[in-house]
């Protein structure tokens, strides 16, 4: 069924397979597109972080690259005033609900948010929006790792690792709206849940929300 197609991303001509998702085609060709929630093996993308906006010739509004299937002769731009504006706002919204004490964070210098900021020239500060300043729960019950929700960006990478890769199902999303959170059944501490502490979720976390205690700073 696979059919070779040629697309253009930022003036670069790329050969790929029809039906592939644009985000992964770009990333595999070393073209950076900001993203947090995208999972390559997931057939129906989450499309929830709303950072991977691109523009496609012939379409008037930016679309998310993670959910867009490539078609032959597609012409894609990863930067434009409209894209940059949406990415900036989306990024700042995430930061407004994120612990910005990077120096205390185990993921400092190895963080998807820092990477996006660097690549797109965005500040790791919350200027336009007031930080939400909520009470975030810390779960350090597992022996080797901990979960600090003040750094969680709700990307869902840990949930995928837990459910699909580890096949455990200890964690998932609960709560609606602003109260959406990753947690265990009945909100038990991880150590009291069915979690096997396989740590695949820790490896999947793109920020410092799930981290190894031996990496903890301060």
């Amino acid at each position, binding site marked *: 069924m696979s059919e070779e197609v040629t697309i253009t991303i930022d003036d670069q001509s790329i050969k790929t397979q029809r039906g592939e998702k644009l985000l992964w085609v770009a990333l595999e060709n070393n073209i950076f597109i900001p993203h947090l929630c995208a999972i390559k093996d997931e057939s129906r993308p989450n499309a929830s972080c*709303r950072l991977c*906006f691109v523009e496609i010739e012939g379409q008037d509004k*930016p679309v998310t690259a993670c959910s867009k299937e490539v078609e032959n002769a597609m012409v894609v731009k990863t930067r434009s005033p409209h894209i940059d504006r949406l990415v900036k706002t989306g990024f700042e919204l995430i930061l*407004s609900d994120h612990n910005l004490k990077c120096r205390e964070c185990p993921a400092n210098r190895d963080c998807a948010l820092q990477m996006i900021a660097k690549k797109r020239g965005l500040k790791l500060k919350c200027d336009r*929006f007031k930080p*939400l300043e909520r009470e975030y729960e810390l779960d350090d019950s597992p022996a080797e790792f901990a979960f600090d929700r003040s750094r969680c960006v709700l990307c869902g990478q840990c949930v995928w690792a837990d459910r699909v890769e580890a096949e455990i199902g200890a964690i998932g999303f609960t709560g*609606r709206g602003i*109260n959406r959170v990753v947690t265990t059944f009945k909100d038990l501490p991880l150590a009291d849940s069915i979690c096997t502490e396989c740590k695949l979720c820790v490896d999947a976390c793109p920020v410092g929300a799930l981290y190894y205690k031996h990496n903890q700073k301060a």
Partner: protein
Amino acid sequence: MSKNNPQKLYEDIKKKAQNMFKSRQEKPLVMVGTATCGLAAGAMQVKEDFLREIKDKGLDAEVIEVGCIGHCYAEPLAIIAKPGFSPVCYGYLDEGLVHRLVEDFLAGDDPSYEYAMAALERNDEFPTFEDFPRGVYEEKLILEHCGFSDFSKIESYIAWDGYSALAKALSDEPGHVLEEVKNANLRGRGGAGFPAGVKWEACLKNGGEEKYVICNGDEGDPGAFMDRSVLESDPHLVIEGMIICAYAIGARQGYLYIRAEYPRAVEHTLKAIEQAREKGLLGNSILGTDFSFDLDVFQGSGAFICGEATALVNSMEGKIGMPESRPPRLVQRGFRARPTVLNNVKTFAYVPLIINKGADWFKSIGTDESPGTAVFSLVGKINNTGLVEVPMGISLRQLIEEVGDGLPEGCEFKAVQIGGPSGGCLPESSLDVPIDFDSLHEAGAIMGSGGLVVMDQEDCMVSVARYFLEFTQHESCGKCTFCRLGTKHMLDILTDITRGEGDLETLQLLKELGEDVRDGSLCNLGRTAPNPVLTTLRYFYEEYKAHVEEGRCPALVCRDLILYYIKPAKCSKLCNVCVGSCPTEAIYTREDGLKAIDQDKCVKCDNCRKACPTEYDAVLRLSPPVLPGEKERKVK
């Protein structure tokens, strides 16, 4: 292809239904409107009163329940049909009036026209609903039988030619049925206006044995009750439309997704389904043909987001009611991963009419691009609240002033909010916009599901925007960044503005954030949530400016920007009413006997202003919240 002739089978069913109703026509019939609007106004008591009075007088008359006729402002309502008279509708019923009507009209022969609203048939004695100013504009297609039909009996629907469109469709090729709906350019009445025929065709083309037809009855907009009324008052119309759709696309199973907060709609629909099955109009071998289709009701649990197509399907599958990115669309991959047609209650309700009267008839009503009618629930500062059906293309002005009979005395038009929390607020200058999908979109509002709220000078547009955003923010599922966090920040900013905090930059930020939430969100809840904010910023910018620059709420609504003040020149020593009305004992009597308010104790509940007799009108709201004395001091 059919074993039997469905038309012939249908004629038999119809004859039986009509015979059943013939006996009904021989004695007086009282029809009490007991849709949710009627119940809230006390219709059940009215029904009891009729039954008791009729029994007391030993009369032979029947009392039945019917749905909503749309004149909700005059509930409780009843229609009395007595042989020899045109049926007459009476409003504002109470025990005394019921007694009078039974004695004078049912027992005697005086229809008591002084209490009547309108007659239902043309006669020489009393005007009909068509003679009302709104009658000139109203064109009832899907609401035609709402409130006149006994929803508890399928025969009542059949006697009015109900299910004849199904019989006609079943005698034809499915392809022709689909073609007719497509030609009619029936646009989805859920709000987006996507052509139903095109959707059906796409679903059909995606093939497969298993397909589903789902009716979206998850109406959740504050102030909207069109779908509820249709399902409560005329459920068979929707069911017939769904069966025809199933026939056209070859589906065998369908569902009506109705929110659990509409218990009467659920009850009436379930009963209707059962009755249709008994008559062989639903289930196996419908009307003797080899076409089989069945329906079930799925009750939604009150999440606004579940009105969104993919979230609705997720919730039906037992998953969290959260939207998915599209494509794939439901017609490609819907319920149980099968091609699915999802249409609104009203969309399905038009289908039997289109099949019976043809696509050309349908297109002769309304505008070229938006044929047919629009159903609105009129609420807010308007005389005739209720349900109306008007042809597409009439202006908002005609709808408000003629159909809704304008604003109550003393109210001055300020804005109309159309399309619910996803819609926009339009000002006086937009009133001549014709009502159709495209014109409203251009003006910044949307047709939405049809809620229409009229607002006057006492409504603060910042508060209104804040109210709607509070709703969408609360109903956001939290999946995507823009809706989860964007609506939260918009709400926080709006709350600041209602407190007079912020500056022109705050307004600019609100606008930019609103535009980004509109462009960046995953589903239509997030994409349309900023509409009330963006339209009020566009049309009522001065009012926002007054809040942040002068700390003033021009409509005197925002509590942090007003204070209550008793004007000594107007207050009377002889009156104490306000003192007793105050829940916090903030009002005291001055040495000269006049009243005054202790600002530290006042909670701005508005009780004293309402209590102050109109001849004094001494309680004033001042904005910005500065007492007259302080103002002078400040000037010095």
